[in-house]
């Protein structure tokens, strides 16, 4: 087992919204009335059914309520236990599933304000991600600008399965705003379920959806790279969250090969895909989708050809590892430091900024 070192950054924590009604105090009269009058139900996504084994480690599951809903639990089970200096909160509340852009906007605003008040205000180590109503790019940009005034927000958060491929030009104002404001853009596993979860339609099982997240990340990386997002926004950092990473080398071999063959189709892609990934894309550590033997893992790290790609994460409270085995076996001390401290600090420029201003 590899031991964590103190002072790390946990880049993927999931504070849970207890219920849609928990957001009511953060909505205006109209939306409060809509939620109550229409009898709207809680927005739990099929991506993470509350009682699914992946949604919470058994020993992290509370006696009642949703896993991840209690700050004291998160402090004890993750922040204190792994000695982190910062923890980045990525709420996975199912606001993306909503179809009305107005409703989505209202819920996102409420969710972001809820996060600041109920979590960031209560533990100085916590940082936030801005959840945006992606069905409206205009409203997304406005929400980014509104929240970015609070320096504790370090990232914009989108789902890997949404309405359109993420490289599409329509989304570029979101990336321009993020780059301008020094925010990373995080892309997290999960679907808005506005499209079938695979390119061949709907499977039968939850496990299929979960396995398919990795392929969704692959198609999104292709879209982001070949549409030219990073030629236009060279300083933009994008972080693939709960994506897995063992698929990356072979994925890049294929993308690189086809880019060489047909780059005349996308002439603005001025660097090899591998170089773009090295400079602009990062991956959270968990889940480590590899067998637990040191030899295979070391080969995989060698195939990745960079020690700057991975960012430490517990994926709390999701069940990715047991005990304290958050780091895979056999990592060198140098790599542990990079994954836990150097790489996150280099990715999230606003982590340190927040200290300088009072929100």
């Amino acid at each position, binding site marked *: 087992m590899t031991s964590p070192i103190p002072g790390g950054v946990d880049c993927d924590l999931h504070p849970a919204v207890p219920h849609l009604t928990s957001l009511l105090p953060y909505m205006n009269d109209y939306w409060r009335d809509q939620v109550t009058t229409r009898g709207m139900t809680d927005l739990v996504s099929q991506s993470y059914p509350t009682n699914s084994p992946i949604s919470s480690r058994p020993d992290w599951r509370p006696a009642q309520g949703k896993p991840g809903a209690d700050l004291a639990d998160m402090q004890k089970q993750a922040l204190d236990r792994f000695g982190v200096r910062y923890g980045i909160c990525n709420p996975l509340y199912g606001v993306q599933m909503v179809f009305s852009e107005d409703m989505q906007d209202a819920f996102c605003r409420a969710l972001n304000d809820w996060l600041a008040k109920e979590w960031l205000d209560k533990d100085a180590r916590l940082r936030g991600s801005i959840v945006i109503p992606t069905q409206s790019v205009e409203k997304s940009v406005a929400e980014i600008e509104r929240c970015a005034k609070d320096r504790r927000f370090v990232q914009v958060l989108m789902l890997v399965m949404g309405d359109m*491929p993420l490289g599409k030009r329509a989304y570029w104002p979101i990336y321009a705003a993020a780059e301008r404001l020094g925010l990373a853009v995080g892309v997290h596993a999960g679907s808005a379920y506005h499209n079938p979860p695979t390119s061949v*339609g709907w*499977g039968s099982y939850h496990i299929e959806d979960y396995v398919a997240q990795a392929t969704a990340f692959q198609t999104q990386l292709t879209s982001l790279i070949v549409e030219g997002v990073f030629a236009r926004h060279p300083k933009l950092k994008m972080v693939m969250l709960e994506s897995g990473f063992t698929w990356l080398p*072979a994925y890049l071999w294929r993308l690189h090969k*086809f880019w060489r063959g047909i780059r005349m189709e996308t002439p603005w892609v001025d660097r090899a895909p591998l170089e773009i990934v090295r400079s602009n894309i990062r991956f959270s550590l968990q889940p480590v989708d590899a067998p637990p033997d040191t030899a295979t893992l070391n080969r995989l790290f060698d*195939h990745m050809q960079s020690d700057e790609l991975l960012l430490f994460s517990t994926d709390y409270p999701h069940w990715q590892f047991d005990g304290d085995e958050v780091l895979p076996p056999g990592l060198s001390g140098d790599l542990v430091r990079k994954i836990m401290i150097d790489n996150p600090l280099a990715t999230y420029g606003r982590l340190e900024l927040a200290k300088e201003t009072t929100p």
Partner: protein
Amino acid sequence: MNVQFRPEPSVSTSIKTAIADCDIHPARATKDELYPLLEKRWHSHLETYGIQAYHGMMEGPPYPKAQPNASRRDAWPPEGGPQGSSLSFMQKQLLDPYNVALGVLNPLATGQGLRNQDFAAALCAAINDWQIEKWTSKDKRLKGSIVVANEDGVTAAAEIRKRAGDPNFVQVLLLSRNVEPLGQRRYWPVYEAAQEIGLPVGIHAFGFGGNPLTPSGWPSFYIEEMVGHAQCQQTVLASLVLEGVFERFPKLKMVMIEAGFGWAPSLGWRLDKSFERLHSEVPYLKRKPSEYIRDHIWWTTQPMEDPERRDHLFQTIEWIGWDKLLFATDYPHWDFDEPSRVLPPGVSEANREAFYLGNAKKLYGVA
């Protein structure tokens, strides 16, 4: 893809030993070449309504290819017709110079992926007859693939059983993109019939099933479609394993064609890890997902995985198994893999022989 950089046709002489080419695409020379094999009513149907697939285009693909017919610029037959439509030119350009002892035909423009299932079945049956008449009966090195109306399992199974024992065919062919993931029960009659007549089922990347090409909708570019075949194939394989197809049909063998193989180890690890957590949802699976893949799946090699470092390639192949790879060129398509340039030095003679010929002969039962 080397052809892209060397437009002059050139043929290596370094491969003297025989090889198997497990992905060759035969084409029709003329639009009405199939008519003698097709019932009259379908002639006028075709003229009137055309080919209606699960996408909007009446002609050509929704994502324009990089070259006409996605084919090598030097592959037009001298007597006319599209690339891959002339047996004599295929012999001259592919089978003879590369010493192809076994060539597996995978016809792509068939009845597969059509919305009209009766028309699909009629076209597939005609294409199967056409493979014998035009190709396999004329050159014994070539073997056909039984194409079937993929969305209608019962009709497809009947077409498969009709060809039982016919030495002209060595596999059943499906495309990867269908209306549903291929593990779904509507497709099980195909697997049952294939297992019964003892042929492997090949799943060739491509096709349209009406679903967007990504779980976030339609991408913009041809390169996204091409790279995306690897992601599509992963979800197809995950579906086959997780639906229990290999528990239900324990003798079934499948070939993943033209979708890469480098992603296989990672998919297996991810499946295994998810299965550890979620096996209660799929209790009929008796083994780890990666074990079904190891035992039931073969992989064609083109487009060959091409990492910067060859030790990465060799390690990946070791994770999959040297006994599971089947060499393919994808002739006459533009991303043709030339046999002499595919495998870097440093491979044992036994593995090299298995890769180029032995695995294919064993799987397809060809002496």
